[in-house]
C-alpha cells in the first residue's frame, strides 16, 4: 500500500486536518468529512451529518398516515417509488391489511424500475467522481427514458407519491406495459455499452480494486445492507429472506461478490440492474387483473364522482381525509430491499390516524457508518471512490 523508500519510513510529519464538504461534488450532496491526513494518507475520517436534516420523523407525528406518503419520496429521492412502497407496506402491516394481487405486482414493477433508475444514477455519478465523465451522459440517457415512464405512470418524473395505504393511486395507464417492455428490451445493450467502457478498463480497475475493503464480519457488524453487504460475500437480500409484496413469485438471482472492495460493489450493482430487468419483465408478463385497492371503505376513499353524489360516501371520504386511517394501538416494523439496502419504517401507534412515533431505518445511514473504517490508511483520492461506491443519499441519511 505505502510504497515509501525504506530510508524515509521513519520520517513522520505532523498530521493536518482537512475539511471536505458540505458543498463538495465528491460527497454526493451535503456530507461533510473532517479528514486527518498525514501527507496524502488518511489517518482518520469523521463524518459530520445533519446538513440536510429536515425533521421528517417529527413531521410524521403531525400528519395522517396518508399525508406522510409525499415525505417518503424525499428520503432516497433517487428511487422515490421504492420508498413509497416501503412506507405503505409498514402502514398496511399496522392496519392488518394486504394489498390486492394486482397492486402487489405493480409495486414490484415500480420497485425494480426504481432500482434500475437509482443504480444508473449511482453509476453515472461514481464514474464522474473517478474521472470517467462520459458515463454519466450514457446513464442519464437511460434514466431519462425511465423518468418518462414514471411520468406516464405517476404524472411526475420524480417524487412520485404513487402508492396509497391499501393500494395505489391509480391503475397502470393504457399501453404502459408495452412501453416498459420496449425499454427493458433495449436496456441490456445500453448497459453493455457502459459495462464495456468500465468493467475491464485498466484505470477503473486500478482505482476500484482493493479500495475500501470491508470484511464479511465487519460488514455484518456495521449493519451494512444492500449491494455493499452482498459485495462482502453475504448473500442477504430481503426479497429472498423475507419476501414481501409477492416477491416469492419471482425468479431472480442475488449477485454476491467476495472481495468487499469498491470494485465488488460496482460488479454487484451492475448485475442487480440485469436482475431487476428480469423481475420487471416477469411482473409485466404475469400481471394479474382485478382491483388495485382494498375494497374497504375505511381504507380506500370512494371514487370522486360518488363522493359528490352520495351522503354515505361523502362521510367515508371525510373520515379518511380528516381523521386518517384508524390504526390500532401497537408497534410494527417493516422493511424492504430498497436499491441502497434495507429501508425500514418503525411505527408506534397510540391509536388514531397519526403515528405516535415514526422511525426510519435508512440503509444509507448505516452503510455510511462503515466509511471511516474503509478509508483509514488509504490515499486521499480513495475517499471519493469509497463514498461513491457506498452510494449514500443524504436525504435518507439525515432524514
Amino acid at each position, binding site marked *: 500500500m505505502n510504497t515509501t523508500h525504506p530510508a524515509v519510513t521513519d520520517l513522520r510529519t505532523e498530521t493536518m486536518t482537512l475539511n471536505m464538504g*458540505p*458543498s*463538495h*461534488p465528491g460527497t454526493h*450532496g*451535503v456530507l461533510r468529512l473532517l479528514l486527518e491526513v498525514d501527507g496524502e494518507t488518511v489517518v482518520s475520517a469523521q463524518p459530520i451529518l*445533519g*446538513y*440536510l*436534516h*429536515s*425533521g*421528517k420523523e*417529527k*413531521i410524521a407525528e403531525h400528519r395522517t398516515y396518508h399525508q406522510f406518503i*409525499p*415525505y417518503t*419520496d*424525499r428520503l432516497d*429521492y*433517487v428511487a422515490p417509488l421504492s420508498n413509497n412502497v416501503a412506507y405503505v407496506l409498514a402502514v398496511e402491516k399496522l392496519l392488518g391489511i394486504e394489498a390486492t394481487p394486482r397492486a402487489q405486482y405493480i409495486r414490484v414493477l415500480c420497485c425494480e424500475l426504481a432500482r434500475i433508475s437509482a443504480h444508473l*444514477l449511482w453509476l*453515472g*455519478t461514481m464514474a464522474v467522481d473517478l474521472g470517467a465523465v462520459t458515463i*454519466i*451522459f450514457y446513464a*442519464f*440517457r437511460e*434514466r*431519462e427514458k425511465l*423518468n418518462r415512464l414514471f411520468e406516464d405512470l405517476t404524472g411526475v*418524473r*420524480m*417524487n412520485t407519491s404513487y402508492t396509497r395505504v391499501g393500494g395505489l393511486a391509480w391503475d397502470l395507464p393504457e399501453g404502459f406495459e408495452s412501453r416498459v417492455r420496449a425499454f427493458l428490451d433495449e436496456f441490456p445493450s445500453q448497459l453493455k455499452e457502459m459495462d464495456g467502457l468500465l468493467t475491464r478498463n485498466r484505470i477503473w480497475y486500478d482505482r476500484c480494486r482493493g479500495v475500501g475493503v470491508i470484511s464479511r464480519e465487519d460488514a455484518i457488524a456495521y449493519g451494512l445492507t444492500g449491494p455493499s453487504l452482498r459485495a462482502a460475500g453475504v448473500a442477504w437480500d430481503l426479497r429472498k429472506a423475507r419476501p414481501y409484496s409477492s416477491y416469492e413469485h419471482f425468479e431472480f438471482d442475488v449477485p454476491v461478490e467476495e472481495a468487499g472492495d469498491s470494485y465488488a460493489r460496482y460488479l454487484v450493482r451492475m448485475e442487480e440492474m440485469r436482475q431487476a430487468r428480469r423481475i420487471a419483465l416477469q411482473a409485466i408478463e404475469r400481471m394479474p387483473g382485478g382491483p388495485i385497492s382494498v375494497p374497504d371503505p375505511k381504507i380506500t376513499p370512494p371514487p370522486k364522482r360518488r363522493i359528490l353524489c352520495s351522503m354515505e360516501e361523502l362521510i367515508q371520504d371525510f373520515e379518511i381525509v380528516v381523521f386518517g386511517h384508524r390504526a390500532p394501538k401497537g408497534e410494527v416494523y417493516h422493511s424492504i430491499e430498497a436499491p441502497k439496502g434495507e429501508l425500514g419504517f418503525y411505527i408506534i401507534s397510540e391509536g388514531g390516524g397519526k403515528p405516535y412515533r415514526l422511525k426510519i431505518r435508512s440503509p444509507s445511514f448505516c452503510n455510511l457508518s462503515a466509511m471511516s473504517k474503509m478509508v483509514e490508511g488509504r490515499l486521499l483520492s480513495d475517499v471519493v471512490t469509497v463514498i461513491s461506491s457506498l452510494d449514500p443519499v*443524504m*436525504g435518507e441519511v*439525515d432524514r
Partner: protein
Amino acid sequence: MFDGNLEDMIMTTRLGEVVKWARKNSLWPMPFGTSCCAIELMSVLTTKYDISRFGAEVARFSPRQADLLMVAGWITRKMAPALRKIYDQMPEPKWVIAMGACASCGGPHNSYAVLQGADEVVPVDMYVPGCPPRPEAVIDAVIKLQERISRASGDETRQGAALAPRQEGA
C-alpha cells in the same frame, strides 16, 4: 489602402451592451445541490435537456469561478452559513436561482430545521416552482435571467456597476 465598405466590417455599439451580451451567454453555474432538485439539476446538465444549448453548462464547484448560484434543495439551519459563505465568495456580478419549492419557500418541510426559503440568507433573482421543477422550467428560468441581464441598466450594483458604463441608463 482601404477599399472595403467600413460599415460592413465594423460594428459600433456601447461597451455595456457587449459586456451584457457576453455575460448572458456564458453564465457559469455553481450547482449548490442539496437534495432532490440536485438530481433534476443533473438532468438539466446532461444528455436530454443539455443546458449547454444556452451557454450555461460550465458547472463550477468552486464559487470563485462561477457567477450563477443555483440553489437546488432545502436549506437547513445548519447549512445556511455555508450557503451564505459560498455566495459571498462568488465574484460580482452574480445571480441566484432558487430551484424548487424548498429553495423558494421551504416546500413541504415546515419544520424546526429548515429555512423557509433560501432568500433568508441570499438574495434570489429567480424562483422556479415545482417539487422538483421539470428541467424545462429550470431552462426557462435561465432564459428569463438572460433576458433580465440584457435589460439591466448599468446602475444596478448587483448587475455589475463596476464594469458597465454609467451613461447607459441615461
